[in-house]
């Protein structure tokens, strides 16, 4: 009982399809408060779509997504925007605004949503930048940053308004080992220092298993397994073991659906 009360996000019976493609076919997900939860799965399973559904950028055909006590899909624009102020999102590309400097990017949400004096904004921005180690890069433009730095700057922006929850969209993809290590370190320290709930969407198994408290594995529109990293590692489900161990063939077939090889060759 106490476990359900501590869930910041409760997703029930979520259905979402794009055109005729079913992306989610009735999934239930609970995100515990103050923990790092990872959502994993092969590419193309709609992990990013799930983040967009939580952020209210997409509307599901069916089902509910509770953030505290608000059902996100049912909120009007004003309440949705109020809920979003409590969320931060780190996009895969960083999504920094290209026409302003790093400093102005971090200051942007503060300037948009608060009436703080410039001096205070400056202090806050420098604090956030210091936390991600980019205080010296404040005057650079986003185009001058490396991919890893852009992601760190975007992380500083995501925590600018001190959100209760941060959504990470593929934070480790395409990073060199050093910046990967930096990001793992940052996500962990931000989570514990600021007592933030983190949701990580990823398919980088090692890094994710390393920092996550709870893991959901999604494939073909269903949750095929969830639990702590240890439980996932020791799972005997063929799906999970194929994914965790990265086997080429298994329940997720190597071949895209096709007529039998022999028939196809003879048909020519």
């Amino acid at each position: 009982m106490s476990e359900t009360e501590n869930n910041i996000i409760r997703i029930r019976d979520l259905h979402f399809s794009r055109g005729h493609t079913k992306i989610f076919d009735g999934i239930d997900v609970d995100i515990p408060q103050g923990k790092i939860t990872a959502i994993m799965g092969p590419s193309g399973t709609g992990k990013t779509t799930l983040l967009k559904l939580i952020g209210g950028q997409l509307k599901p055909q069916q089902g509910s997504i509770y953030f505290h006590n608000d059902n996100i899909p049912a909120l009007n624009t004003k309440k949705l925007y109020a809920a979003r102020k409590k969320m931060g999102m780190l996009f895969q590309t960083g999504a920094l605004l290209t026409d302003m400097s790093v400093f102005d990017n971090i200051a942007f949400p503060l300037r948009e949503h608060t009436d703080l004096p410039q001096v205070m904004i400056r202090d806050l921005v420098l604090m956030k930048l210091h936390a991600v180690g980019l205080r010296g890069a404040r005057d650079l433009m986003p185009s001058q940053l490396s991919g890893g730095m852009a992601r760190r700057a975007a992380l500083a922006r995501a925590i600018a308004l001190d959100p209760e929850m941060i959504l990470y969209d593929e934070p480790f993809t395409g990073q060199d080992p050093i910046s990967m290590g930096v990001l793992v370190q940052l996500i962990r320290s931000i989570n514990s220092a600021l007592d933030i709930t983190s949701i990580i969407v990823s398919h980088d198994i090692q890094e994710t298993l390393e920092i996550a408290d709870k893991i959901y594995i999604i494939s073909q529109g269903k949750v095929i397994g969830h639990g702590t990293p240890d439980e996932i590692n020791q799972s005997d489900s063929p799906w999970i073991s194929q994914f965790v161990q990265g086997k080429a063939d298994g329940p997720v077939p190597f071949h895209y659906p096709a007529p039998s090889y022999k028939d196809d060759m003879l048909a020519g």
Partner: protein
Amino acid sequence: MFNWFAQIGHISISFFSRLGKEVILFFQTTACFADLLSRPGLIIQQIFSVGVRSMLIIIVSGFFVGMVLGLQGYNTLVDFGAEESLGVVVALSLVRELGPVVTALLYAGRAGSALTAEIGLMKATEQLSGLEMMAVNPVERILAPRLLAGIISMPLLAAMFSAVGVFGGYLIGVEMLGVDSGSYWSQMQAKVDYHQDVLNGVIKSVVFGIVVTWIAVYEGYSCTPTSEGVSSATTRTVVNSALIVLGLDFLLTALML
């Protein structure tokens, strides 16, 4: 047979739903104008990128168009001994038609395509999504200031085009071909009416400002967020703007005459 009807039905339904979405978005955007007035900085920045940056091409083109009008007009008018009317010909062509139309076409190529590319890239690089997730409405923050800046800039650019063009015609007609300077200006002033010609030209350019900027902004906002999507949206902006400007010009001229 039924397939054929179904296809017509499908095409018209998707056309009207697109149109409906576009109209709703347009009104949502214009509804933000009132709030924008409290943040003039946003508009100033956009006037800089759509207006100031288009100024050079507009002024240079206006000057050349005026000179060509002077040359062509003179050669035709001199046959009738009516070269004193050169000023009228140059000024009326510019103020009524060429000023608003050519400015709109150049603007579509210079500022419109840049707007589409900018907004399309913001979409492709998730900046628009990022704004939404920061609880900032991209319609209010990105679309509205650009549209308003376009509406403000277009009539100013068209006026510059016409004014510079009249001087270009003067340079050729009076300084080079020897039309009497006094009759160039006085005939012009006698025949060009403030309401009928100048104001109608301004109205046209305001309409073109709304239409071209809107096309640019909408194409960017609704494009497929990939590099091909952005580039084809940019092309569509220029092509659609040109067609709609020329069509609307005919319609407006017919209405105003």
